[in-house]
């Protein structure tokens, strides 16, 4: 019962975290920033807008499928609300599934902006999804378990620092932080996937994105700091990534594919030497 309440509280939590994120970014920009509840007002306003949508089954379904993916994440992580103990890989699949769904929506919209966004997203997915799954696997091999409910390692970063670093780098892509926001690069391709969406479907897509972002923060806290600190660490990770987003001019040459590959190799070598990973 308490888990259901918890999962329900995470939805407004995701929106407030987004409000906090905008505030942090604004402070970094030397601006006052919007009110804390601005994302709420945005979504409420979008929900009240006239429905004007291109008639295509896939295009209309995509927002609901994306929202379903987000809710599914809430149900299995960090506490299994539905009472079934899922394998950790299921969460990885759901993360990937949500991005794939966006690609379908953008292609079905037949907008050139959506088309270019899909191509860029596909290229990016080829790069980062593998790293994401490797990170998940390494953390769970280190713990010696296969489900979130049994994961009880605390402060994993002390034992596997390189994997923790790799996880933080991978989250740059999942959170679409510059320079990994190429599929939403407004200067060339407008809003990318979401160019053709408006009104209620756009509000639903927004909610799905916000929940996914919150789940990413929680997942990082969960893997790196342990179950107890997962929720406490979420706002701290949010602030970290907001600061990284605003200082992208300084670091973005560091965060390249090379960094990912080198970190992944180092992580494997470290795990093999320390004996955590039997070859």
């Amino acid at each position: 019962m308490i888990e259901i309440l918890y999962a329900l509280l995470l939805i407004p939590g995701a929106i407030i975290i987004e409000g906090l994120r905008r505030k942090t970014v604004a402070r970094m920009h030397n601006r006052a920033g919007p009110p804390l509840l601005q994302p709420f007002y945005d979504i409420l306003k979008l929900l009240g807008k006239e429905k004007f949508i291109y008639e295509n089954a896939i295009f209309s379904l995509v927002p609901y499928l994306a929202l379903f993916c987000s809710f599914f994440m809430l149900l299995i992580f960090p506490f299994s609300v539905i009472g079934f103990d899922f394998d950790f890989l299921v969460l990885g699949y759901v993360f990937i599934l949500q991005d794939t769904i966006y690609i379908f929506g953008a292609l079905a919209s037949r907008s050139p902006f959506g088309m270019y966004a899909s191509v860029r997203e596909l290229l990016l997915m080829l790069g980062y999804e593998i790293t994401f799954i490797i990170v998940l696997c390494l953390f769970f091999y280190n713990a010696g378990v296969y489900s979130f409910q049994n994961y009880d390692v605390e402060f994993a970063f002390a034992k596997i620092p390189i994997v923790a670093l790799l996880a933080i780098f991978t989250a740059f892509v999942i959170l679409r932080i510059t320079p990994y926001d190429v599929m939403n690069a407004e200067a060339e391709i407008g809003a990318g996937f979401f160019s053709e969406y408006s009104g209620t479907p756009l509000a639903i897509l927004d909610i799905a994105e916000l929940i996914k972002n919150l789940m990413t923060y929680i997942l990082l806290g969960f893997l790196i700091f342990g179950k107890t600190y997962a929720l406490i660490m979420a706002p701290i990770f949010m602030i970290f990534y907001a600061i990284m987003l605003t200082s992208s001019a300084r670091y973005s040459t560091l965060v390249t594919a090379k960094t990912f590959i080198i970190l992944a190799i180092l992580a494997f070598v470290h795990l093999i030497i320390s004996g955590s990973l039997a070859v």
Partner: protein
Amino acid sequence: MHTTIYPIGPQHPSLKEPIFIKLHVDGSRIIKAEFNLGYAHRGVEKCSEGYLLDSALHAVQRTCGICSQCHSMAFLRTVEPMANIQPPTKVYLQRLVIAELERIHSHLLWAGIMAHEIGLDTLFMYYLKQREHVLDAFDELTGNRVHHSCDVLGTMKRSFGKKEIDFLLEKLQTIEPEITELRRVMEKNEVIVSRFKKHGMITKKLATELGLVGPVARASGINYDVRQNDPYMAYAIKELKVKPVIRTEGDAWARSIVRCDEVFESMRLIRKACEMIDPNEEIPKKKNLFAKDGSGFGRVEAPRGENFHFVTIKNNKIARLKLRTPTLANVLSYSRILENESITDVPVIVMSLDPCISCMERVAVIKNKKEEIWTSHELFEGKKHD
């Protein structure tokens, strides 16, 4: 070859004003770029026709929100000799101060937008924070932040006293270290260098062929600046001689550096002019003036390049006014420089010319009571007449 059509505009996030660029792309490589204008014609020329010089000046000053002083200076350069007026040196120096401040403000705004185009929003905000100091200085000097509207025929609305000059110099002191740091970022930052270098190449030959002006031409190695080649008003004074910033690379990066360096050159000119202004000297009061019938032209160096005004006066009223803003000279190069670039680089290349579309839109020909609008593409390619 089958190509996909990728539209940029008339409304698009990377464009601040309406212009339509139709890209024929193969994958993400641009095979051919066409562009079309005519979405924001405001009729400034027609507005001024039939009005007295003072009223026309009022309309001319509002042609552009960013370089309004340059338009008023070009107009005054044309009509003041026709009305046989010679304003005192202090008025010329004051006009120079406002024009150079405007150059700083225009270049800072442009640099911010360039940073925004490649996703560096923080840099955009930092540039705009510095620009805010310049706008404060405008407020103190002229009473208006954007449309200064401080010129009148033969004089200015306000005389700069000690208080205004001290405020201005203090603001310059505030922004100088910040702008130096921002220029270093523009020059050295790897992201900016990799996005700007070797993109939107304009060789010296192409720049000469197309008749490009302003920082765009100077970044391609053409030593042309109206302030230097045809000095006017206070620029003709020996101490205020302009040293144009020239680079030879001809890419978007060179254009950025030229503009960043011009900001420092403008600051030097303002400081020099402030030394020469006598705070206690009174400037003449506004008088009603009568201009001879006839035509004349004048040109000044606006932040974006050469700004050209042609005026015909009849019965002390404007009979014909023709403005050619620098963007019209520069915008023609789009179809040439966008070829063989990637879609990713389009915003950088488009913005690197610093287009000011609404000021430029005035190409219309009335023929057989039927209006037809010439696009710049047609002008460039040569329109067929029947």
